């Protein structure tokens, strides 16, 4: 273990930058699991889908992946709304969410992943953009643009989401639906419609998160599996539905993973987020900024 | 401990909070052996929370609960049930995939037998049938709870609690929705149980039933005990009138 100040600083920096990206990845799950109580374990698969969409457009037309993702937001929203509708009719209505709902999303995870494998194969895919490659240097501090840009846009996304949730009518209805569905009904708002909108937004974020992912690293279909634990770890650690909490938790996990990877080797990194998750669940299931 | 009164249940300064919300505060209560206690109060006053704390479903932060001379602190709900506490749930919680007979079988298998009394299969069947008969559900013995009406589900709740052969039975709103004669039936059942030596705490909103059954009434309002005494005295208490009856 070679300890040097430079290494330390850069480990922290890249941890923070990756953390920002992790926050965007988790934002969708904060919505679906943290607020709506839907265990969408397939969320990472939709992120990978977003990555591949960005890839296709980038390879075919040379468009910027982030712009592509923004254009694709409505498509992903509709996908999310459709999935929620099936989920609601099949499970929530019958009151059988737990086992069968989980199994449903688990199945979706595999269907998505394997479909991508069958269509694209298992080769790593990557995109090209002007900010992938250059690195800013401040003395011994390195700021790779391919980490910086997604991080900044992620934080922007989170900020927009937070504004929507707290300032708009729909956003507040979404927060309300997690707490008191009956009250919503009495106000003549259909909680099912609200949840559908929320889940649609959740999957829409996956579109952007996918673009970020493929900017940061090359992607192949099974990459999503690494993110399952990470995403739920950050969601739980961040207080289940609190977006500011998600950001903090994401940065924390990003930094710790970066440390572990730099000083102990990357083969220990997966244990970090999952270990964190276990610790959180054991000690404080309400998370750091608990609800 | 040889006390002057043989109190089956002693609650001392019990307190329970949910985050910032104080559900119960300073509850002290003694229930002597063989008592018929009525526990009343407006909705949300903490009656079910109190039951949950007594039975171990919830943990109280303050105060102690003593049962049969020994403290209940640290004992899980199933251990308390084996010591002789049993309760029915205000909102019925039947085992949906088990028949009524099997629902009754559970406390027999897990509480009664855990106390050391082994029964043969036919004895168990007989006892299950007996419990169902007491509440008039023997015809639906092989049915599933989803086939029951709300009222029948409450009766099942009560029968299930009885099947645990408790020393203290807490009946939480078992009579909601019952007709006049059905209320009489359940009251008669509870009186019979009491005469067999079971101490009973009755939580109800049907004042007629509470008045005729209880030898003592405790009133809970907003998490505090505001009255505890003879039924007639309690009913005439101005604070009780204002807080509960006057509504």
């Amino acid at each position, binding site marked *: 273990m070679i300890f040097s100040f430079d290494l330390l600083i850069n480990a922290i920096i890249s941890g923070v930058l990756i953390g920002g990206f992790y926050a965007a990845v988790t934002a969708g799950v904060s919505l679906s699991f943290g607020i709506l109580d839907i265990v969408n374990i397939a969320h990472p698969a939709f992120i990978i889908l977003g990555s591949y969409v960005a890839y296709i457009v980038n390879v075919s037309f040379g468009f910027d992946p982030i712009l592509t993702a923004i254009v694709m937001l409505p498509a992903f929203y509709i996908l999310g709304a459709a999935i929620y509708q099936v989920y609601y009719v099949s499970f929530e209505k019958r009151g059988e969410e737990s*086992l069968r709902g989980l199994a449903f999303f688990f199945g979706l995870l595999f269907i998505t992943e394997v479909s991508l494998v069958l269509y694209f194969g298992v080769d790593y895919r990557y995109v090209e953009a002007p900010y992938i490659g250059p690195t800013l240097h401040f003395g011994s501090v390195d700021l790779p643009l391919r980490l910086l840009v997604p991080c900044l846009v992620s934080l922007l996304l989170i900020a927009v989401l937070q504004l929507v949730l707290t300032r708009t009518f729909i956003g507040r209805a979404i927060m309300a639906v997690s707490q008191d569905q009956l009250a919503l009904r009495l106000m003549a708002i259909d909680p099912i419609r609200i949840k559908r909108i929320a889940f649609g937004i959740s999957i829409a974020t996956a579109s952007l998160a996918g673009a970020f992912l493929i900017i940061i690293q090359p992607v192949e279909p099974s990459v999503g599996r690494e993110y399952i634990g990470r995403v739920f770890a950050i969601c739980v650690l961040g207080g289940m539905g609190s977006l500011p909490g998600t950001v903090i938790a994401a940065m924390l996990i990003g930094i710790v993973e970066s440390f572990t990877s730099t000083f102990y080797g990357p083969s220990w990194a*997966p244990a970090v987020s*999952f270990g964190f998750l276990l610790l959180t669940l054991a000690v404080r299931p309400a998370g750091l900024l608990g609800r | 401990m040889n006390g002057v009164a043989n109190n089956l249940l002693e609650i001392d300064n019990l307190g329970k909070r949910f985050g910032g919300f104080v559900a119960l505060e300073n509850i002290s209560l003694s229930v002597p052996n063989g008592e018929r206690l009525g526990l009343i109060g407006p909705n949300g006053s903490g009656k079910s929370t109190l039951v949950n704390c007594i039975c171990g479903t919830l943990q109280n932060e303050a105060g102690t609960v003593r049962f049969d001379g020994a403290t209940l602190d640290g004992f899980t709900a199933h251990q308390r049930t084996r010591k002789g506490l049993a309760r029915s749930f205000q909102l019925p919680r039947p085992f949906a995939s088990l028949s009524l007979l*099997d629902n009754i079988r559970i406390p027999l298998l897990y509480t009664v037998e*855990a106390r050391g009394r082994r029964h043969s299969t036919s004895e168990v069947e007989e006892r299950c049938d007996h419990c169902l008969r007491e509440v008039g559900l023997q015809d639906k013995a092989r049915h599933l709870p989803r086939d029951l009406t709300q009222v029948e589900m409450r009766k099942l709740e009560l029968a299930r609690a009885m099947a645990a052969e408790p020393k203290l039975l807490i009946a939480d709103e078992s009579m909601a929705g019952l007709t006049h004669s059905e209320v009489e039936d359940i009251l008669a059942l509870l009186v019979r149980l009491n005469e067999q030596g079971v101490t009973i705490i009755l939580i109800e909103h049907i004042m007629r039933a509470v008045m005729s059954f209880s030898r003592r009434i405790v009133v809970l309002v907003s998490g505090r005990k505001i009255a505890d005494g003879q039924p007639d005295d309690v009913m005439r208490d101005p604070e009780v009138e204002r807080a509960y009856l006057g509504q």
Partner: protein
Amino acid sequence: MRSGPFLLICLVLGGAVYGAAALLDNDYIFFAGYVVLQYVVLSTAWNILGGYCGYVNFGSAAFFALGAYSTVAIHKFTTINETVAVPIPILVLMAGVVSGVVGYGMGYLTLRLRGAFFAIATLALAVVLETLVVNWDFVGGSRGAYILRPSEIAPFGNYVRYLFLIMVVLAAAAVTVARLIERSRLGYGFATIRDDELAAEALGVPTLQLKLIATTISGALMGMAGAPFPYYIGFLQPSSTFGLDYAVNSIAMPLIGGTTSWVGPVIGALLLGSLEQIATVTISSAINLLIVGCLLVGFVIVAPRGIIGLVQTYRRSKPEEFAARRPIDADAPEATP
């Protein structure tokens, strides 16, 4: 029927399959059959915790891999110390002990968590276990581990026939255990945990104890299923051994077959397992996961009670049945025996 005769019948059936395959003298049947039987054990084991108790375990792969790696560790130990190789049946038992202990430990750590959190925690544990194994060089780490399998063993001929027979015994034992649990007091207890844990606890059911029993037995059986695997496959790779593929299969098979009884996982494993073996040979092995995913989603939406549920609904629709006097309800659960 009591468990003794039942076990005997299972063994006889398994023996008959063995005999038939030996007659056809096609070793491929043994190779494929081994995998199908392995899934019978895995899904039966999963169902004890998942179907009976209602606690979804996403970490089946971890227990399976634990069994496999305990075999590897013991094998390396005996090889290095040049002692006699441990026979597979003993390896199976030892793997069962290791996995059972880990299952107990997992239960102790996670069983206080409600539904979804428990499932996620099991996933987390599986990854942590995988990371530990990958970083343990004695068993080969990320490079993987080789076990040289003898090509023949008397009196069976091809070694894979011996492995197949071991799996027959294991499958018979697993199914017998599941059936025994189902019909015992323990089975009632498990059902109450699944239906309403709070009420169960209030009625005297020691829920934590019972759940720990479930995780221990479930884990032990999964580990035993994994113990012969290194001999079967020859080269053990952590990424695939710990893969989510085992998790999805051990969840899909009971859900498709039906979770309320021992019959469901067996049906699911036999059907889905055979389907996957056929697909691997005719199309590709990647398509397997697509099949599992689609079937899982399909069944969970359309036939939530699995094949058992479909059969029950069909039987209830016959006019001769007394129960048909009630309106036909495809979702009505059947009372457990």
